[in-house]
């Protein structure tokens, strides 16, 4: 099998559009993680993240001919598509209220089996609240948090994706951290629904 390690994303895209399946698979392996995680962190739903990822690569195949390498990386091009799709899903889902507990069960399905169930549930609740806190941030603060803190991009990469200066990303991220810390302080003062006290705690 051909090794594509030395090929740039642009070359892989060109060859994939020409019908080379191995090139497409190599490009998919490079981009899928970032796209899926970004969609998941932005929507909070694995189903929506899968839908977005699938749609992004379909769009790449359809609109890939309009990509110009001098304008930026394929990753940034794909990120633009992803962000538009996520916004579309957010607009679509805004009218619906998710059923309580669905996300928690999803998270539990992928959790560590060695950890006690009560601890998993408690952690899942906290995670859900932090996710809700992130989701409640204004979009220009939420994007740097998702890109830098969750998708683990560098400031430069995040600035390239968001098409703004690195200093802007840093200042927005700093402000977002302050806001999140305030929200988490408020959350900490509340008692969680299920304490991580083991089976006895649940029975009492």
């Amino acid at each position, binding site marked *: 099998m051909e090794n594509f390690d030395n090929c740039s994303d642009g070359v892989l895209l060109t060859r*994939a559009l020409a*019908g080379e*399946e191995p090139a*497409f*698979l190599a490009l*998919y392996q490079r981009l*899928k*993680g970032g796209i*899926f*995680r970004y969609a*998941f*962190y932005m929507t909070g739903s*694995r189903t929506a*993240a*899968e839908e977005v*990822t*699938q749609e992004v*690569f*379909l769009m790449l*195949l*359809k609109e890939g001919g309009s990509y110009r390498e001098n304008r930026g990386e394929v990753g940034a091009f794909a990120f633009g598509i992803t962000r538009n799709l996520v916004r579309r899903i957010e607009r679509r889902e805004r009218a619906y209220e998710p059923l309580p507990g669905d996300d928690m069960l999803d*998270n539990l399905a*992928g959790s560590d089996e060695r950890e006690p169930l009560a601890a998993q549930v408690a*952690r899942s609740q*906290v*995670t859900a609240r*932090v*996710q809700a806190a*992130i989701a409640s941030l204004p979009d220009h603060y939420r994007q740097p*948090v998702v890109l830098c*803190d*969750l998708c*683990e991009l560098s400031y430069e990469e995040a600035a390239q994706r968001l098409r703004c200066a690195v200093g802007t990303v*840093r200042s927005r*991220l*700093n402000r977002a*951290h302050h806001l*999140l*810390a305030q929200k*988490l*302080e408020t959350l*900490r003062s509340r008692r969680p629904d299920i304490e991580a006290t083991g089976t006895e705690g649940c029975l009492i």
Partner: protein
Amino acid sequence: MTCKELRWYFEDHLRDVEVRSARGAVAEHVATCADCAQFVAAQRELGRNLRHIREAAGQVPESLDTSVLLNYRRQMADQKDPRRVSMSGKFHPRLLWAFAAVAAGLVVAAGFLLLSRHSTTNAVVYPASTEAKTISVKETPRNPAFEVQRTKPTRAAGRRMRPTSPEPAPSLPVHAVRLLPEGFRSLMYCDELSCPQDMEMIRVQLPSSAMPRQVSSFIQTSRSVTADVLVGPDGIARGIRFEEIEF
């Protein structure tokens, strides 16, 4: 390390805050400053929670890999098959413009056609069927008053005009009414159109009750009346002349 330096420090090292905050200058400053200790604790909790969220994403499911690969193969198959491309592929922008131009031309042509038909109808004095009946008139020459005046629609006629009151239809010329022979009273409107051919005269005997009211009052005592009736080719009586009154 000052409080300000510590906050600057955390801007860049939030991800590995637990490792770094526990050592070195940060640890020394936190031990002496309560506010910064609280700040570091909040940052530590935030970093921990963000790490939990990062882990919650998990791996990309294999079913997604399969779906994306199937999509790719389908897309490539569509590109190789020109018929499928024409149905499923997107239109070229130039083609879209061409379609838009053709559609606009059709709309304009349809509009002109409708307006021209409308203006032709207005210019005709009588409907076209009138011309056929006029031709069948035998005895009299063609009357120019009945001719359909076909005029070409002009640009002014094609323009949308403010609706005005319709022009009054031209009154029928006097000579168009067919004259009955002398002494006959008209029973029905008769002109060259309704009585195109020669009429037949029939002598009939009528009861006095069939007489017109003004005549019957004059001849109240009479029993019957002899009259000549002009009957058209359609069998309809057009005129009548009273000949003899029997008392």
